[in-house]
């Protein structure tokens, strides 16, 4: 988010940003066996759909699939080598404060992602609104949706994040005293 000094007009922010969508970007690598294996290792998951190509070939999927929550992993660039990424849309939405909490996440899964698939994503600002919290009576909330597609441009998943942005107690007190 982009903290605004001075006057803040929530209606103007909503008008400019709600519904705005980013360009699509594609993950650096296709869906691969080894990241799936490492993901399963950390939570001791032995599901043969994710780990056993022979088993998976006998299922309706016909191939190893990734645990559904890995979809955003394969839409990204990974940690190395580092790439200079453009600022995310979420970072550009004007807010009152610069303290950020990612409060919750909802993931909807529409299609399995299989080894070899290429996953792309694009972000959309679904909502921006004001709702007070104990720390900040004029906290600004941002709802972000990320749409994930495969190489056939089929929607495979949607991730919705609800982000709370707020000011410091000093900033709130300064406004009250103004």
């Amino acid at each position, binding site marked *: 988010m982009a903290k605004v000094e001075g006057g803040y007009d929530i209606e103007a922010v909503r008008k400019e940003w709600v519904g705005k969508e980013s360009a699509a970007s594609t993950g650096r690598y296709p869906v691969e066996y080894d*990241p799936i294996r*490492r*993901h*399963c*290792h*950390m*939570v*001791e*998951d032995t*599901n*043969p*759909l*994710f780990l*056993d190509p*022979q*088993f998976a070939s*006998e*299922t*309706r999927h016909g191939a190893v699939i990734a*645990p*559904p*929550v890995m979809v955003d*992993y394969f839409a990204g660039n*990974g*940690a190395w080598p580092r790439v200079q990424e453009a600022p995310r849309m979420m970072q550009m939405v004007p807010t009152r404060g610069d303290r950020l909490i*990612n*409060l*919750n*996440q*909802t*993931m*909807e*899964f529409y299609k*399995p992602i299989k080894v070899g698939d290429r996953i792309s994503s694009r972000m959309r600002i679904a909502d921006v609104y004001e709702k007070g919290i104990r720390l900040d009576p004029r906290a600004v909330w941002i709802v972000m949706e990320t749409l994930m597609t495969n190489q056939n441009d089929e929607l495979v998943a949607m991730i919705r994040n609800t982000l709370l942005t707020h000011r410091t107690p000093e900033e709130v007190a300064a406004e009250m005293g103004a």
Partner: protein
Amino acid sequence: MVTKASVQQRYWEDVREGDELPGYDLFLSETKVAEQVSGSQDFYAVHHDRDFARAGGHKDIFFNTGFTRAALSRLLTDFAGVDGWVRRLSYEMRKMNRPGDTLRLRGNVTRVYRDSGGAGLVDIDLWVDNDHEGIATPATATVELPARGS
């Protein structure tokens, strides 16, 4: 060798509201910290470097969102079986899970119904808890299960 015929499938008709999901526990050892970084590829130091975490005011390092989400997902994909499908997972990161904790992954069926297309759905309340924090991550989910004979 695991074959599809050897894996038991859960069917929609056999699930009732109030059923408990088969849960599991995960002990967060020091090795699990390394597995977390390997599996999630999240290298933010607050999840593996004690000095960094404590300098930021935290009691200790804590496990990251990717790890917690993966643990919840495993509970659901185990429940769904080979022919089921996790349609939705929603969760809140409220409290921390730290090395030395044993995580308990648990869940209950809250609703059994069909969607407008006739698919058999199950709504679930699930959570991660530990002895120090209680429920650290509450969640809800919807899983599609196959019907017998489908």
